[in-house]
């Protein structure tokens, strides 16, 4: 019986791997100009190039965007998984700590505050900032505050509520800023909240990859501890886990991942909440040895598909990625839940 489960799992891993490569190349192929997979492969692996224009699109636009999608999808999914396990709450996601709200506040202050407060700020301060830096400062300030609070309180539930409060606080400030800002800057901010995968230079991707890589590596290092935490705090302590230390490590890993992603591509919601559930339902387990790798891969696939849909194949228009993740993902989660009828953390 156990061996049949194992083979079943191996087949699913294999399918996941195949799906990953398929969606990766499909993602590169879709866009305002459709490029055949053959052309992509020739452009990447072939010795000579026939079409320098397509070559340029593939290398400077499509591949970086696909890589960004992979990093973003994988990172958000694993940080959602971490938060669900830490807070023992199936509704937790990468943004429960208020990290995205912090980033939004930073971006809003930069985009809209600059016009509202422009008269009072020196020009060099406004000019030299970019939305990314403003958003990073916002998200990491929130992370710092939450981590400081976490070392003082025992109760993770209190921490969850504090994170939500930070979210409400920053949304309130953002609303006030929006109220006073000009039409143009408000539109700019709204566009930022839609999320955008295609705006990253290679060096940006490197930084993003580094942060998400460190966060994911830290999670993998804590696989056994995360599994022990599934038994609840009493058992975790009795197994020799220092709850404070482990919680802080998990918080910081999540903060690095979710904070950097929000700063670079905007607040992409839903994915981090949904993908861990999809993996739990498909693999029918809560074991992090399975959930961490599958969430990474599934998240990447999910993001690649969402982005491919967002490109609206055959048209020059691009839909906001943030809407597509939920539009495409929610039915899957609902379908899996109705079919399996069993939700477990």
């Amino acid at each position, binding site marked *: 019986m156990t061996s049949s489960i194992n083979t079943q799992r191996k087949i699913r891993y294999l399918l996941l791997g195949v799906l990953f490569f398929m969606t990766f190349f499909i993602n590169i192929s879709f866009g305002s100009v459709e490029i055949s997979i053959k052309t992509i492969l020739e452009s990447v692996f072939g010795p000579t190039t026939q079409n320098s224009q397509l070559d340029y699109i593939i290398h400077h636009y499509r591949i970086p965007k696909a890589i960004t999608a992979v990093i973003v999808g994988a990172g958000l999914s694993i940080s959602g998984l971490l938060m669900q396990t830490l807070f023992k709450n199936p509704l937790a996601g990468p943004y429960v700590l208020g990290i995205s709200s912090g980033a939004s506040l930073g971006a809003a202050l930069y985009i809209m505050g600059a016009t509202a407060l422009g008269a009072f700020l020196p020009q060099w301060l406004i000019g030299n900032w970019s939305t990314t830096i403003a958003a990073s400062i916002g998200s990491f300030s929130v992370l710092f505050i939450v981590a400081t609070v976490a070392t003082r309180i025992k109760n993770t539930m209190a921490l969850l509520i504090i994170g939500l409060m930070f979210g409400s606080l920053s949304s309130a400030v953002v609303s006030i800023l929006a109220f006073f800002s000009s039409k143009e800057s408000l539109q700019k901010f709204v566009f930022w909240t839609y999320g955008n995968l295609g705006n990253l230079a290679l060096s940006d991707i490197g930084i993003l990859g580094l942060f998400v890589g460190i966060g994911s590596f830290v999670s993998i*290092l804590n696989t056994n501890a995360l599994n022990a935490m*599934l038994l*609840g*705090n*009493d058992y975790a302590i009795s197994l*020799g886990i220092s709850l404070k230390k482990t919680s802080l490590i998990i918080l910081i890993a999540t903060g690095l991942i979710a904070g950097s992603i929000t700063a670079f591509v905007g607040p992409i919601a839903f994915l981090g909440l949904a993908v861990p559930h999809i993996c739990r339902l498909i693999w029918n387990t809560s074991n992090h040895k399975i959930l961490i790798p599958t969430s990474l891969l599934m998240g990447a696939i999910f993001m690649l598909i969402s982005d491919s849909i967002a490109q609206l194949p055959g048209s020059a228009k691009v839909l906001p990625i943030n809407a597509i993740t939920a539009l495409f993902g929610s039915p899957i989660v609902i379908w899996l839940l109705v079919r399996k009828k069993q939700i477990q953390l």
Partner: protein
Amino acid sequence: MALEFTDLIIGYKDRSKSQQIAGPFDLKIPEKKLTAVIGKNGSGKTTLIKTIGQQLTSLEGDVLLEGQSLKNIPSNQRARLLSFVFTTTFSSENMTVNELVALGRYPFLNWYSKPSKKDVECIREAIVFTALEALASTKIYALSDGQKQRAFIARALAQETPYMILDEPMSHLDHHHKAQLLSLMKKLVKEKNKTIVYTTHDIEKAITNADFILALTEDKSFFNTPENLIKEGVFDNLFPKEQVYFDPATTQFLYRDSKSK
């Protein structure tokens, strides 16, 4: 060397005040014996367990394990000496019995190591000892209360600690499973040389099965063999006498308004 309480006072501490629940205890839990902790609701049984487990800090005094204060034993070291079965606690149930029992090996694993041959053997042995072989691949949520209790005991067993602390392992179990659990605990003491402490409301079963009993009353605690506690008349004063009284001849508690009277 044993599990020892020195002038231990337990309770809850807040920033401004502390609420004493029970104590002071000054006693040594004998090794390789089955000790039952009894007392009415609110007498401090669970508080005592949580103090031993370091979820709560003692108000005064200390818990010593093998002569060393528990506070000074590093958490990973402690996890190799003491294992627990708790009552009310969040647990994910989306894992198989095998996976649950395997978590007992956590103190012996480093960050991502695969279970060693010894780990696998310990897990198997714990499952066999608790007669869960047929259910090894079953999810926890699909188990009955009795099977679940056994699975959590197996998890504690896999931790391979000389001391096992169980908080109300008999609650929610019928007579058949209570008897099964009691004989399992006695078997663990006898065959595996474990020192087991468990809390219970079933005083009658504790009297006939446990080697020692720690009885918690409002102002005092008593620790002795069941026979001596009966002689001392401890059970007579455990509950308010107008409703329940202890009959030493049958070692049973009887209700005043029940038909037998």
